[in-house]
């Protein structure tokens, strides 16, 4: 198992304290747990009151929303591009 680079965008960068961090994880669910353990400020931004991933947080693996992959069970490794976005919009 090797580190996955997780990139943050918009106001999640402030919570994470940087644009990206390295995480040792095999799937997205464990990645989220590790992220919040290492960066507790991300907990407020990413988890709801039940401790579940907020609907407003969008995680993408190789340019695909995990909702259209295998959700929190989506596998990741160091070859994958992982990005975490808060709810954003524009036009």
């Amino acid at each position: 198992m090797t580190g996955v680079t997780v990139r943050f965008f918009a106001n999640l960068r402030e919570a994470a304290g940087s644009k990206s961090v390295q995480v040792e994880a095999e799937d997205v669910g464990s990645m989220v747990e590790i992220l919040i353990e290492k960066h507790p400020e991300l907990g407020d931004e990413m988890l709801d009151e039940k401790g579940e991933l907020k609907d407003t947080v969008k995680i993408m693996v190789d340019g695909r929303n995990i909702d259209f992959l295998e959700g929190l069970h989506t596998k990741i490794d160091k070859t994958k591009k992982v990005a975490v976005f808060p709810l954003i919009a524009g036009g």
Partner: protein
Amino acid sequence: MAEGILRVNIEKGEISYEDVPEDLQKLGGRAVTSSIVADEVPSNCHPLGPNNKLVLAPGIVTGTSAPSSGRMSAGAKSPLTGGIKESNVGSRFAQTMAKLGLKAIIVEGMPEDGYKLLHISQEDAKFLDASKLSNIGLYEAYEKIHDEFGDKVDICSAGIAGEMKASNAGLCFNDIDGLSSRYAGRGGLGAVMASRGLKFIVLDGKGASGVEIKDKEMFERGKKKLVKGLKEHDVTKPGGALSSFGTNVLINILDESGGLPHRNFSAGSDENAEKVSGEKKADMIKELGGVRPHVCSPGCIIQCSEVWTKKGGKDPVGVLEYESVWALGPNCGIYDLKIIGELNRACNDLGLDTIEMGNTIAVAMEGGMLEFGDGKGALKLMDEIRKKTHTGRLLANGADLVGKALGVYRVPTVKGQSIPAYDPRAVKGIGTTYATTTMGADHTAGYTVATEILSVGGESDPLDPSDKAELSKNFQIHAGFIDSSGYCLFTTFATLDDPETMEGMAETIGGVIGEEFTVEDMEKMGKQVLAIERKFNKEAGFTDKDDRLPEFMREEPLPPHNEVYDVSDEELDMIHED
């Protein structure tokens, strides 16, 4: 002043007020402009000839205290598409127009030469000579107008591109600081205005009587719900993504999704995107001395706007929208916000739509006129337009014409209008809107990106073609209503996620028109608008074959997902069937 329609004809020297016909009294914005254009403009007329008319109309709630409602529509037969056109803009001009009791302004006739300024106040409307304000940039012209008429007046104008009768001449409006930076840019309406002999409309709202609200209780009830929804939604709330980073916050997520077109739609992602992102721009605005957040019109909760400047706050441009940054940036292989700011300022100054201009430069790059990434070269092309050279005239007429002139195959247009900042191969619902809307390629005509990329109002896989016809149809219907209401399209992010916020919006409409108005009535209004426009285009000669994306989007897979656009023609043709 009672609500009325102002009709002006410079050729005949006539200005008259008319009562609002009964069928338009409870409508606004796009519903009014498209109805008048359909009734009064022959569908087969030449867009620059004597029979076309420019129609301006504020939305139903525009000019009231309803939040984020400073929007209006401009309509005509488009010189760019040859079909009916509605171009929407947020500006204090819209609110002042409504407060002056103007349901619509209709500009008609075709004088032989010269330009006028139409000055409208609570007391009267009159033509003034505009020759000294012609053939100069709009930033300078707006300063002169404010010097002469006061800094509170609002302005609508055609720029140098309009004087050239160019198909990419937009209609320019002032922002709250008086800058020539708010645009009803699409479709060449600046050329329609200039070809009527009109360069400027100046509104003096002093003493304006305001907008009548027929059922104040209903209006206030709805407004309360709407304000609450906008203030609580993560996207629209103060301090939310739009006010913190502006519309350009989309650059990174579209690039990550593989749907941000780079170098004339040849790739959907590029490692340089971050350099022109909303996050980067927000940091640079702080460094350079600009303003963020800002509003396009008073009373907006969302506050997505800004003032981009050079160092020390010099040479203010106004807002650098997502669409503009993309079109003049990544789509041209340019990843330098300072260059993009200069290109945007040139567009604003000359009276050009940034989406069409960026696509035109990109097609010129593909055609060998200059290299991708050549920002200085792109600025030189803008100078060609300013000098009205033959090359400049070609460039001011859009991507389609330049593509033909240079023998380019990959020309990203539908009905002659350039495709905005979402590649249809990676975001298939918005491609479906581009193909089938009456407007030519236009993302605002059915913003499926909300559910495909942003997870607002549900979720739809952007790469799955199977549900896109229905998705686009529903968004197109809602856009027909929103563009008529006077509300900003961005209110949709909150209303789609919360039924009570949507209900509040409906009640504000009901309050203004004085009768119950429901969410179902929104749909009826949207369908009515689309039917009027579709009929006009059909009579103008459009068929199902015009509701198609350019061939290369079905032929060339777009990296990184290597998808083509694969919504079937049969599904596209079902969208407008009842």
